[in-house]
């Protein structure tokens, strides 16, 4: 089982402290949710783990290997996949080509830890885009674009997937479908770590929640306990939001 161990992770932008020493351990066998108000450092956490930003301090160990400060492509190659807050795709290419690129890079890996896909069609079928292979990505409706984002990430054969607000902009029905998709990915052995604002969705999907507030982790544990934690209710659930 793959483990992502984050210890004392610090990231500052000038005088702004985005992460003030965060400790989180993520096991690929679980579904972990990370919640927190806007500006609490959730996306910065993902971006720092995935090599978009270089950390100012702390360690990030992925399966025992220190990956802090490695370039993002190298981290992608190690089986740590991600999606982005904005629905991302290769817009001018067909849906098939979008996932084909990901699969080609995923299957090349000697230590690819996630499920292997034999063809783009198989992966598209899995995420529910089976009939859209020949569509150009940019003309697809937003909900499908979100799925395509997950498909591209899965194509890279991640053992652990970090999802940054995958349900943002989706309606109720689409969110439910997304939860199903993530559950099925999890059943294939992909670790799921998800950031979202939608507490209902998080409560349904995640067994464990971590809460960030101003770059600090203020709670971490079973979902129900965390959601009933007075500190969490004060800063997040009961706040001005």
């Amino acid at each position, binding site marked *: 089982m793959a483990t992502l161990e984050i210890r004392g992770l610090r990231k500052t932008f000038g005088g702004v402290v985005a992460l003030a020493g965060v400790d989180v351990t993520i096991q690929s066998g679980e579904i972990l949710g990370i919640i927190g108000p806007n500006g609490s450092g959730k996306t910065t956490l993902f971006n720092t783990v995935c090599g978009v930003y270089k950390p100012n301090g702390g360690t990030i160990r992925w399966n025992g290997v220190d990956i802090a400060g490695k370039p993002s*492509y190298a981290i992608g190659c190690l089986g740590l996949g991600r999606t982005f807050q904005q629905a991302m795709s*290769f817009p001018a*290419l067909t849906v098939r080509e979008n996932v*084909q*690129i990901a699969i080609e*890079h995923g299957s090349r890996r000697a230590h690819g830890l996630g499920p292997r896909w034999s063809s783009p069609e*198989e992966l598209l079928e*899995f995420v529910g885009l089976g009939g859209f292979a*020949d569509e150009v990505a940019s003309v697809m409706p937003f909900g499908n674009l979100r799925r395509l984002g997950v498909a*591209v990430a899965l194509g890279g054969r991640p053992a652990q997937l970090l999802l940054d607000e995958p349900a943002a902009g989706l309606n109720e029905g689409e969110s439910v479908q997304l939860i199903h998709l993530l559950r099925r990915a999890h059943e294939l052995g992909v670790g799921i770590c998800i950031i979202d604002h939608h507490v209902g969705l998080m409560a349904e999907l995640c067994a464990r929640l971590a809460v960030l507030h101003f770059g600090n982790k203020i709670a971490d544990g079973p979902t129900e306990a965390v959601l009933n934690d007075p500190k969490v209710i004060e800063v997040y659930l009961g706040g001005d939001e």
Partner: protein
Amino acid sequence: MADASAVAVRRPRNSAWPSPASLILTAVVVAGVFAFPWLNPGYRALSFAVTTGVTAIVLYGMAIPFGQAGIMSLGYAGLMGFGAYTAAILSRDFGMNMWEAMPFSALVAALAAGLFGLPSLRISGHHFAITTYVMCELLRIALINGGKFTGAATGLDLPPIGTVLGVKLDKLSNTYLLVAAFMFISMLAAYCVARSRYGRTLRSIRENEQLARSIGVNTNMHKVGAFTLSGLFAGVGGALQAYNFRHISPDLYGGAISLYFALMVMLGGPRTIFGPLAGAIIVTFLPEVMRVDPVDSRIAYGLALIAVVMLLPGGVIAAAGRGYQWAVRALLGTRPKAGSADAGASWT
């Protein structure tokens, strides 16, 4: 679910053979190009045709980073210069003929292309284009001030190409056929790159660099790699050009010439199989053969470029492909099968 046996594998369209319509069109173009000397075009038209072919070789190289990876460089005249001067210097100092020198020309130009491409890791778009333009100009200045080694402003002379298998390649019509052969090899090579896994990787960089990196694409390496690869084309083109002109000088390889290359690629369309050739013909061949006033033709290029960028994104060949599909639909009232009638319109 995820193992190989679970789901029937349909062959992805990308790896399929080109459609019959594309193959027929390609055959017509190849036959037309090779038949040209037998149409009695005259010395002037034939010599411009040779220049056009040499230019197209460079443009097919340029189409790889520009069309596939989406990075415009204005360094290609300079890279061609590296190829040409390498051939000339190897001939002068080591007595090498064109065939012996050509691999070195390609190699030197490829290394220079990688070097020219390095700034693309930090800057992009216009800024990168301007940087490469400046590199081209620096090369020109360096060649002018290179003393005896580069022949300074006068440049260098080269011997004739010579005879291969009893064919006198210095005869203009034979030079033309030689260049045409190299041009089609370049076209085929660029086509194969675009259709390959490597081509898809480059397109992922063009489309979304951040996403590409997140799935493990080493975007920096592939950017420099694409430039290096395109430099091979420029080096071969430079060697052919040097032996065709038999005299080269720094002014052939300045930034202004690079601008013309960019114009040609954009007019013709960098992502289409015949785009670079069409661009070279439109800009290098037609105005000279039709004896258009150089000032008029420059005005026309400017207007044409604006028109193409605004009205025909993808270039004239891509537009022709779309026009053909539209005509098929209008005449037959049906939609042509995807990929069946693209008239060579798209590589991607």
